[in-house]
């Protein structure tokens, strides 16, 4: 890989900035949806096609809980995206091996871990309210790849911390 020729960095920078904005829109949209379920519950139940003869209360409660957990993910996503943006900025400045990036990666790892737990919780709620009459397919639940990403990020954070210490030692060597 040659330095200065890769387009990955500017692309990552722009994409991350867009994702930061989209994340807040996503949060606002879910919030609006939850608010709407309280404002006009019958319309919402018709819209999601709750079959007649089924008790809508557990389904509505479950969906609201899923939405609330979805809103909780917004600040976590923001934390991940902004930390990643700061890391990309340090790469752009040509000095990514700084101790603050190790802390940033560690924070990202913790946020990813909480997101995985939220995803499992959402998956469980989805399963509990789904039935033959009301099938609900959510892209949530236990994910091997998700947990691998958590472990990988924790390991990377540690590698960064060690690498920074090694660099400091090397810089102090005469």
């Amino acid at each position, binding site marked *: 890989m040659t330095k200065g020729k890769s387009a990955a960095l500017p692309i990552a920078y722009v994409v991350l900035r867009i994702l930061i904005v989209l994340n807040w829109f996503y949060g606002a949209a879910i919030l609006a949806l939850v608010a709407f379920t309280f404002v006009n519950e019958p319309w919402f139940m018709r819209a999601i096609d709750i079959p007649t003869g089924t008790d809508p209360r557990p389904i509505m409660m479950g969906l609201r809980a899923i939405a609330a957990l979805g809103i909780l993910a917004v600040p976590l996503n923001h934390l991940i995206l902004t930390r990643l943006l700061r890391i990309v900025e340090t790469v752009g400045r040509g000095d990514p091996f700084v101790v603050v990036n190790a802390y940033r990666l560690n924070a990202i790892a913790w946020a990813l871990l909480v997101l995985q737990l939220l995803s499992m919780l959402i998956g469980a709620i989805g399963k509990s309210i789904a039935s033959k009459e009301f099938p609900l397919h959510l892209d949530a639940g236990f994910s091997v790849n998700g947990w691998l990403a958590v472990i990988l990020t924790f390991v990377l954070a540690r590698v960064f911390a060690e690498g920074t210490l090694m660099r*400091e*030692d090397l*810089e*102090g*060597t*005469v």
Partner: protein
Amino acid sequence: MAIVVKLDELLHNRRMTLTELAEKIDITLANLSILKTGKARAIRFSTLEAICDVLGCQPGDLLEYRGG
């Protein structure tokens, strides 16, 4: 720091400046200054060898351990 670098003393005894030593052992003056002021974290064997060679001393003459 418990390890004291006695480069100043050695240079004074040999009537040599830090700049002259830096030129002779091919190390930047800035790095040699770091070593002289005791701010270095480590010293390479190659640097130690070059200093001892130019100043005609032993590593023990350059470094001293002061415990406590």
